[in-house]
């Protein structure tokens, strides 16, 4: 048994694909039509090539409610590790990304939180050396 897939809900798969590839810098891995949606996954060029992030449609009202409530409470839906959080923060700001937390030291990590334009907050963290 191993962890190879993480998934997040997005309010629009096209918009999500654009943001996650063009702004965050992930690469599309799989795109398989399933009805009016797609099985859509990404990999990180700087991470493990076989660990994928699935961008799932939030078409079910239950997933919308879940997503909305986490967002409203300021809770990130998932977290991505970065090598230099200050550089990433500056780079994303240039793309117009809205942060709800600037890089902040929190014990063993420095964290920051931004909105992914698809209904989620995402945390970035940089572990201390």
């Amino acid at each position: 048994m191993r962890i190879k897939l993480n998934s997040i809900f997005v309010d629009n798969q096209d918009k999500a694909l654009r943001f996650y590839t063009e702004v965050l810098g992930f690469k599309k891995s799989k795109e398989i039509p399933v009805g009016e949606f797609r099985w859509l996954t990404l990999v990180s060029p700087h991470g493990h090539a076989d660990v994928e992030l699935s961008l799932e449609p939030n078409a079910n009202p239950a997933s919308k409610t879940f997503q909305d409530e986490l967002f409203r409470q300021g809770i990130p839906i998932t977290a991505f590790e970065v090598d230099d959080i200050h550089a990433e923060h500056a780079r994303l700001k240039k793309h117009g990304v809205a942060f709800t937390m600037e890089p902040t030291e929190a014990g063993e990590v420095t964290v920051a939180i931004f909105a992914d334009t698809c209904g989620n907050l995402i945390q970035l963290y940089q572990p201390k050396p």
Partner: protein
Amino acid sequence: MLTHDALIRLCRARDRLRETEGRAPIAAIAREAGLSPYHFIRQFAAVFGATPHQYRIDARIERAKHLLARGNHSVTDVCFEVGFESLGSFSDLFARRVGVPPSQYRRRWQVPSRVGTLPPALIPGCLLLMCGEAASAIFKKH
């Protein structure tokens, strides 16, 4: 940086834009959020990936898709139910956003879909779970 209060105000604005009853002007929703229309539009787009106007239209189209897929409503009923005032502009807009007119979209759910051509191993269970009623209806046909 967006404070938590600012985030909450934007969430409230988003709820207002999802309402199908009435149609508060964007300037009024900006005022409720405590922002000038210019800053409201800018902040909203940075956080939710669409201007308030686009977001409202997208929300109406999404709701229309949901109602059409259930098949219990006529296109005209759906048009008025989601807050459009003219059938013509609803159909045009729907066709531009979704790729097919609402009548065809409604029919699409009544025939077996391409899903059945996928090898069973590739039909993701989680997608089934997330697509709700409409998707389960399709998968049942196979």
